[in-house]
């Protein structure tokens, strides 16, 4: 049978909607309530608990740990301080992305890497010849995201370390509700938030502690439908949805490089050798063929298309994850891979792969929409990601 997560005893009891989804071979709640709206708004206006345990997690230690990771990922690990976290993709030798995740530096020679898919074999192969140990701690470690504007206040109540000065993409070790945990100020929502990493056996106790502490702040559990909307607003790509891992793609065209996924900022070509550097240097030289951008679909256009059919404007109730053609004039110049109605921005948004010539912010394009069984094209505009980026995401509280 499929795996539940360490939080399953709690999430199962709470999931009134019986809306279960698969994530990395696990069963997780799609939404707890029949509609996911309240869970979404909790992320943006209060706080939400999201079970992110399905992530694959690897513990990397040894004298060559930094050397190994620098070989694995395009970012410069030498510049990652202890207790710092890096978001990073990693590539095959052709410079195409295999997976992405966060790299936490727990100590000089100890790191934790998360991934969306199993990567042990690849990590071990990249480590060939180096003095490094890679442990698969996926099942040993539970992960819980506490996200939303109230998350800091809630966490402060039950943590034994100060959190006000814990910066964005930094981590600290603490006892949370008496349980030893690692707190990282990271998340997949683009909001103020934390991820908590604890031994799987302590998962339920951590959940209970947070739920209790958060009750007064409107904390509720959120499923991955709400998370999906939040991450699209934040402009964060999702494996298998917005890109196909290079080691699983049947054809070349399905693969993406970091440049093509708007992750060029993670590629440090001058840091020394890493897997895919040659190919990425060449791509950097000639410029990427594709770019991954935000699209805002014009309200007027949607309204008009529906009105022509005698209907009020139809909007997606949940985030969609299909490939939708994007046009310029008569020509297809790209495709959108995720999209949703942003409840906070009141805007129909999408993430799209666009040929570079049509990827500049401000470019006017058309995205396909189906109105009453007919394919139509709605006007859309290329915009910079993220769509939603509240200052609180990065802000550090200064002591009063």
């Amino acid at each position, binding site marked *: 049978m499929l795996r539940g997560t360490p939080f399953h005893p709690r999430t199962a009891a709470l999931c009134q909607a019986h809306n279960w989804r698969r994530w990395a*071979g696990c069963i997780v709640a799609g939404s707890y309530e029949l509609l996911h709206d309240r869970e979404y708004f909790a992320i943006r206006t209060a706080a939400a608990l999201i079970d992110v345990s399905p992530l694959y997690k690897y513990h990397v230690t040894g004298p060559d740990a930094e050397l190994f990771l620098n070989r694995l990922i395009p970012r410069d690990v030498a510049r990652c301080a202890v207790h710092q976290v890096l978001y990073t993709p990693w590539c095959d030798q052709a410079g195409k992305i295999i997976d992405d995740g966060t790299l936490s530096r727990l100590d000089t020679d100890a790191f934790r890497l998360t991934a969306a898919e199993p*990567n*042990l*074999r690849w990590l071990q192969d990249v480590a060939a010849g180096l003095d490094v140990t890679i442990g698969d701690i996926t099942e040993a470690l539970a992960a819980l995201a506490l996200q939303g504007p109230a998350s800091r206040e809630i966490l402060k109540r039950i943590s034994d370390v100060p959190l006000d000065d814990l910066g964005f993409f930094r981590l600290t070790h603490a006892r949370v509700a008496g349980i030893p945990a690692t707190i990282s100020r990271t998340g997949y929502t683009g909001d103020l938030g934390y991820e908590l990493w604890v031994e799987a056996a302590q998962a339920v106790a951590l959940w209970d502690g947070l739920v209790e502490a958060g009750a007064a702040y409107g904390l509720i559990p959120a499923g991955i439908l709400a998370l999906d909307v939040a991450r699209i607003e934040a402009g964060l790509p999702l494996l298998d949805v917005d890109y196909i891992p290079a*080691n*699983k793609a*049947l054809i070349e065209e399905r693969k993406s490089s970091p440049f093509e996924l708007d992750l060029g900022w993670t590629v440090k070509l001058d840091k020394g050798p890493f897997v895919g550097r040659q190919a990425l240097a060449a791509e950097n030289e000639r410029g990427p063929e594709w770019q991954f951008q935000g699209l805002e679909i014009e309200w007027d256009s949607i309204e008009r298309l529906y009105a022509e059919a005698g209907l009020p404007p139809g909007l997606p109730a949940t985030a969609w994850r299909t490939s939708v053609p994007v046009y310029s004039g008569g020509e297809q110049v790209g495709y959108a891979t995720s999209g949703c109605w942003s409840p906070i921005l009141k805007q129909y948004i999408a993430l799209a792969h666009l040929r570079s010539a049509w990827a500049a912010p401000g470019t006017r394009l058309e995205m396909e929409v189906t109105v009453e069984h007919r394919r139509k094209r709605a006007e859309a505009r290329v915009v910079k990601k993220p769509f939603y980026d509240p200052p609180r995401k990065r802000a550090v509280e200064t002591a009063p």
Partner: protein
Amino acid sequence: MKRRDYDAVIVGGGHNGLVNAAYLARAGLDVLVLERRPVLGGAAVTEEVYPGFQYCVCSYVVSLLRPEIIQDLELARHGLEILPLESTFTPLPNGDYLVRWADHDQTRRELYRHSPRDAEAYDEFGKLMLQLAMAVKPILGMAPPDPGSMRPGNLAKMARLGRHFRDLGSEKLAALVKLMTMSSADYLDEWFETEGLKATMAASGIIGTFLGPRSPGTAYVLLHHYMGEIDGAFRAWGFARGGTGAVSEAIASAARSLGAEIRTEASVERILNEGGRAVGVALESGEEIRARLVVSGLDPKRTFLGLLEPDELPSEFVDSIRHFRIRGSSGKVNLALAELPDFTALPGVGPHLRGAMSISPSVEYLERAYDDAKYGEFSRRPYMDIILPSMIDPSMAPPGKHVMSIFVQYAPYALNGGWDDERREAFGDTVIDTLCQYAPNVRDAIIHRQVVTPADMEETFGLTEGNIFHGELSLHQLFFLRPAPAWANYRTPLANLYQCGSGTHPGGGVCGAPGRLAAQQILKEHRP
């Protein structure tokens, strides 16, 4: 009374003969199929050997039956229903087990339990196999060219083939070369570390061959798992409702409805040759049937060494056919059971009983099974591929009862001292003893047991040496070398005699491709 002449007479009502007949009839030819036995289907038959229990006496799964054949011949309308066979369950000697399920996540989860590395490699392996299966598919679907011939049509075909390979690119081409030349054990060693997984995958590479998992040339059969197309999905095995015989019956029904005539209990004794042309056949009964052309669905040895005299063919060709390797290596045990097997590794009735059950705990186990056969003995601990047809199609057995189909390897045709009743039963006992190590309740649940040795297969189904593929699928007997150089395009040195059996490209399995390709070749030369 003078009989009319047929356009084509097809020797043997096996599934390839029937496919061939149906295609020829569809093109408007006046076709007659002659089958020696009272039932059609050759090795693809279902027989009620024991009252109430339907046995797939010989072949037992469908995976490779070409979708275009199903559509062209409207086999669904003629009663063909293929049900999925979703999992492969391997009980292990340490009391654990390994299952590959239909669901990707579930399989990955199961493999992860044995080895996280393998769970990861499995996806990449699957991707490569799929890519290679796609690369190989056009080759399986073409009549082989003759690399020695300078005819323009042939040269064009060679050029097309060259382009096809070039377009694959170096990575895939190298992967294909490795797959074609390596042993399945070595090939899988490059990918996986879990013994039960490697062995179960390797086992598919040795089915029907007289080779072990460490023998080079066994790896490419791994592709077959990714080449079955059931419901559009690559890599699916199926079971025909009513057993494999239902496939043959559906094809026969299609052939009849397209105008073909089918006669059973009509055993062909020889092919009539007049001045270097086939003009018909003579039956054992003495009856002579004349036809513009003759198509043989029998294996090459039976066709060329049995139905013709050596002096009717070029000596070089006769040598090639004599050298054609066709050693039978497998047997079949069919059981009528009072209850379902209860595997100690995964007790009770579960979904694993609806799929294949594989006794292949390690590569060494399989290799040792082969060692026995190499020196003329049946395996003391054989490899077994088991299904429970009645779990998939309850009509195969009386309510509450079951039939079990056990494909067993190795059982060499050339057994030291030869096969007799005593050796047959000893072989059956070995199979049951082996199975009972994993599912001890089977012994007492047996109501009836049928043991089919390679010698039985030869006698019953006319498979020379009991070889289920009409000739081993070793590298030098494939493609333009199958069954003989220069005669791989379904034609023969005798004008108007064609071959359409598994002994021709692309070979064995219930796929129907040789029958269809042969029909295409014939129709090129003999428009009605």
